[in-house]
């Protein structure tokens, strides 16, 4: 019996020992062998809050701030702390109905839950903000006011080049390797994007402990891992905001682009793209809505035509043709052509605007009168240059000239997604014409037509080269960064002088004089300015568009490129107005006004009426106009629809306790109204 007892107490000891071993083994796997629980615990309890630094301010060349920060104020609500609140008086201040009040609170609970604060009313108006501020003690802690920095554009211009910031989306999150977090803002276009790392400054990170209801209860490890936010750095640009404003005014009601550059530095003075928009539309709460409407606009207001618009440059290319011919020694400045209104060197005659004999009796005359025959001829002479033996080699040599002038290559302006333009490669023609092509095949390149395409920025840069007699600086906006350190985006590349192939100054002198003749007695007489030696070149570019699947010839683009003063160039401009006809009709006068404004710092009153005349003239293709109108009415309808929805919601008695029910009602109404209107349009 005693033996049995002995064995039984041992059995019990073993059972207990086994049970404890199981517990300890399990604890070992839980606490030591697996690390996932650390991560889960941190996820549970520590929130990483990115503290945004104030973004840097952007100044123009005269020290005026053109992109700065302001604060807006949001009224926030914590739904769990609303009991005993004076609902009536807060409704009175906000000018809303009690039903609306309850509807919003329910909406907040659905979105963010009961414990986390949500935006009750965003971007408070000054009037409401003041009233709320005075009475806030009555509404706390259920309500509180939170400030939020937003970007503001005091001059309401330069939307395309300044760009905008927006909330990061999932693709950006992935691309930046989760440097940003959901809810963060970053520069999405323009300078805001290009100089994002400089402007955003150094964001701070604050680690906070939260409890099971997601409420912040304190700092994590006494802020050991926190970092302080450092404000973004300010950018000094070469932009002249007054010139920019005038440029945008002149492009009103038109499609096109203007680029003005200071030839001596490459600093961009103005860059406008029409149609444009008030950049303030893309800040604050309505950003997404406004953006979506602009995205659907057929005139494409979001598209920066100055760096992305690719146009055939037309006759504005002719000064370059002349320079090439002079440099190659094919012609002398005295070379003349007897043009009788067309060029008959190839199978198809190329028409010229001028018929009077002697209008191309030398280079200067040919430039002044923009003789198509003359420049077609010297193009062919250049390509068929006996020195090069074959047409292909001749063309390649010509293309090399063009590329060194900055055409067909991207210049490297400090804006994202600049386009190249196009100077076709020989392979293009080889493929298209099965290796059988001659200088006649692409003779249109000599007069800036055919397959050639250039952006307004490239053409302005070409003017800088002509003005500087053979060199340019990469066009850019930012001239300096305040308190720059080594890890900043380098601006050195904009200080490099790019020498174009060694064309002698004599060649430039002739071309410059010819271009002055264009203004003084040639095609751009309308652009002449009293007392300023303006050298320019008009362009009237033929172009085609695809309308309802059919390729159609559209009204000519109006081009004008110029620089002034000729002896000591201070400004080089390229202007293109889409489908506006002759270069001298619209582009010329626009450029002339800008030059005058920039050089004299002011315009005589007679010229202001000219500005007004140009501003009011609408030049938009009928088809684009019709589509825009349709979109506008759709937008109006959408506003009405929203009103209808709001009305129908206030009519429905919202059951207070079941929180998900009003959402359902809301959705069904939405659908009903949507289908009704959609039908009207289909």
């Amino acid at each position, binding site marked *: 019996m005693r033996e*049995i*007892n002995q064995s*039984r*107490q041992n*059995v*019990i*000891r073993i*059972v*207990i*020992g086994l*049970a*404890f071993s*199981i*517990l*300890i083994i*399990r*604890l*070992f796997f*839980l*606490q*030591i062998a*697996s690390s*996932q*629980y*650390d991560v*889960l*615990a*941190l996820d*549970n*309890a*520590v929130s990483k809050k990115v503290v945004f630094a104030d973004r840097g301010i952007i100044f123009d060349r005269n020290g005026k701030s053109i992109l700065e920060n302001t604060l807006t104020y949001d009224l926030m609500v914590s739904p769990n702390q609303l009991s005993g609140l004076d609902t009536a008086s807060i409704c009175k201040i906000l000018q809303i109905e009690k039903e609306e009040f309850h509807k919003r609170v329910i909406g907040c609970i659905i979105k963010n839950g009961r414990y986390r604060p949500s935006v009750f009313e965003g971007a408070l108006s000054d009037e409401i903000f003041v009233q709320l501020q005075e009475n806030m003690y009555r509404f706390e802690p259920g309500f509180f006011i939170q400030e939020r920095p937003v970007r503001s554009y005091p001059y309401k211009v330069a939307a395309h080049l300044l760009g905008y910031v927006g909330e990061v989306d999932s693709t950006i999150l992935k691309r930046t390797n989760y440097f940003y977090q959901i809810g963060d803002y970053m520069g999405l276009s323009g300078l805001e994007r290009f100089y994002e790392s400089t402007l955003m400054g150094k964001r701070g990170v604050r680690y906070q*402990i*939260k*409890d*099971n*209801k997601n409420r912040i*209860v304190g700092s994590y490890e006494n802020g050991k891992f926190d970092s302080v936010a450092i404000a973004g750095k300010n950018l000094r640009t070469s932009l002249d905001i007054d010139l920019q404003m005038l440029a945008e005014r002149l492009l009103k009601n038109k499609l096109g682009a203007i680029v003005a550059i200071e030839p001596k530095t490459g600093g961009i003075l103005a860059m406008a793209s029409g149609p444009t928009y008030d950049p303030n539309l893309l800040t604050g709460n309505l950003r997404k809505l406004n953006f979506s409407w602009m995205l659907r606009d057929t005139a494409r207001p979001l598209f920066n035509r100055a760096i992305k618009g690719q146009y055939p440059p037309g006759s504005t290319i002719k000064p370059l043709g002349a320079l090439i011919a002079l440099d190659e020694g094919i012609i002398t400045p005295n070379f003349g052509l007897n043009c009788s209104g067309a060029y008959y060197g190839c199978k198809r005659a190329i028409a010229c605007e001028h018929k009077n004999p002697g209008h191309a009796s030398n280079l200067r005359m040919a430039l002044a009168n923009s003789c198509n025959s003359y420049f077609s001829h010297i193009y062919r002479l250049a390509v068929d240059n006996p020195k090069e033996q074959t047409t292909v080699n001749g063309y390649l040599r010509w293309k090399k000239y063009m590329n060194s002038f900055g055409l067909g290559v991207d210049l490297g302006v400090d804006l994202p997604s600049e386009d190249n333009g196009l100077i076709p490669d020989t392979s293009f023609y080889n493929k298209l014409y099965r290796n059988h092509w001659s200088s006649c095949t692409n003779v249109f390149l000599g007069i800036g037509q055919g397959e050639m395409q250039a952006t307004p920025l490239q053409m302005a840069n070409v003017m800088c080269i002509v003005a500087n007699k053979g060199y340019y600086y990469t066009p850019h906006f930012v001239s300096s960064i305040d308190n720059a350190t080594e890890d900043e985006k380098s601006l050195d590349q904009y200080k490099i002088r790019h020498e174009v192939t060694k064309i002698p100054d004599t060649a430039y002198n002739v071309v410059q004089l010819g271009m002055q003749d264009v203004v003084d007695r040639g095609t751009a007489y309308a652009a002449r300015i009293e007392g300023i030696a303006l050298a320019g070149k008009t362009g009237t570019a033929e172009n085609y568009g695809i309308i309802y699947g059919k390729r159609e010839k559209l009204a000519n683009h109006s081009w004008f490129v110029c620089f002034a003063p000729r002896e000591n160039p201070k400004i080089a401009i390229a202007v293109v107005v889409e489908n506006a006809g002759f270069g001298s009709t619209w582009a010329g006068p626009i450029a002339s006004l800008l030059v005058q404004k920039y050089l004299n710092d002011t315009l005589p009153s007679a010229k202001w009426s000219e500005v007004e005349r140009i501003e009011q003239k609408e030049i938009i293709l009928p088809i684009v106009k019709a589509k825009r109108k349709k979109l506008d009415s759709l937008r109006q309808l959408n506003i009405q629809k929203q009103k209808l929805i709001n009305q129908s919601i206030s009519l429905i008695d919202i059951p207070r306790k079941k929180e998900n029910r009003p959402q359902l009602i809301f959705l069904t109404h939405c659908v009903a109204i949507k289908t009704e209107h959609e039908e009207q349009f289909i």
Partner: protein
Amino acid sequence: MKNNSFEISKGVDWTLMLVYLLLVIAGIASIFATTYRSEDIFRGFITLKTDYSRQSFYFLISLIIGVFILLTDSKFFTATANIMYSLGIIMLLLVFPFHTEIKGTESIIRFSYFQVQPAELCKIFVCLALAKYLSSPELNFSEVKSQLIASAIVLVPAALSILQSETGLALVYFAFFLVMYREGLPSALLTIAVSIALLVILTLLINQNVLAIILTALALISILLVRNALKRNKGLLFLIIFIWAAAVGIQRFAVPFLFNNILKPYQVQRIYGTVGKDFQFDPASLSEEELKKVEEKKKAGNYNVKQSKIAIGSGGFSGKGLLKGTQTRYDFVPEQRTDFIFCTIGEGFGFLGSVVLLSLYLFLLLRIIKIAERQRSVFSRAYAYGVGSVIFFHVFINIGMTIGIVPVIGIPLPFMSYGGTALLTFTVLLFILIKLDADRQMILR
């Protein structure tokens, strides 16, 4: 009997006392770690408004009662064991008309300021009564009749607890079978019980049909192995067939019947939750309300265990330190003062702290067995084993539950969990043992 103070301390097992004090203080420290909110600590301890101060107060009361127990003549416990058991049963019965409605339990009677949970206190009386019955001189425990009576002593309060929706407390009473085993319950019974338990767990883990095939294969293999013996003994064949039939019967019919018809749906869900599965209820057999309740309980149960595992798992090797545990400090683990108090140790002191605590419990249990075996009276020995079994069950189920190897059963961790009744119950259990041990030279019946 020269003087009282000498009398009290004479023969007291100070090692046991020391372990007891350590555990209670560790408990108070853990409650402090989870509920301390930067108030003045001194004020916090004297105002009785904080949980740790209340637990300290209960500790004080428990100690006073403990001293009274040490002053009591040990014959008192043997003499009154049966009366106290009857009183306990009466108290349990009184719960039915007089219980107070408190979150899901029907086992609490409230007098103006304090409340009692008879099902908890009854453990003491069952322990005493069982010891008394097992130590009666005319008892022959190898008789089935006496085995049944002993079982009845244990199972009556268990059944009453189940009727009061305290399944967890009821399960604890099964711990007393360990005492009966020590006192001569046939080990075959224990083997059968363990086998059935194993079969039930396998039923949870393995597909019904696959398990049936495995069992059949096992039966055929054993027949093949003993085929020579079978020629001599036909009974062996019947035995194997009987065991096979019983096993298949249990896994095919008894377990589904148990889950579908006897256990509450949420309990089934909890059991399945522990092995990481969902139990597919027959939607026709459950009302919408019951299904909803299952979902709620499932969510809550899974959430508790998940959070508790996160808290313990994030403790790592040496833990985050007292008051540094982010999970236990900020209410991520529900019920962390009471049933999930182990999380605080696990998170704050890591694997090291957990092993130290478990070693403390293991030491306590082995010490109790040692004490049990040195008793001269059967009563004292049986009682000691009773105390050990109850503590062992509580510790294993409670800690197992927090680390996800036992279904969520709401029973406290002895000496540590917040709660006056639980602390008092375990203190009284232990102190009676200490008193009996102190008087072990006396002959008790």
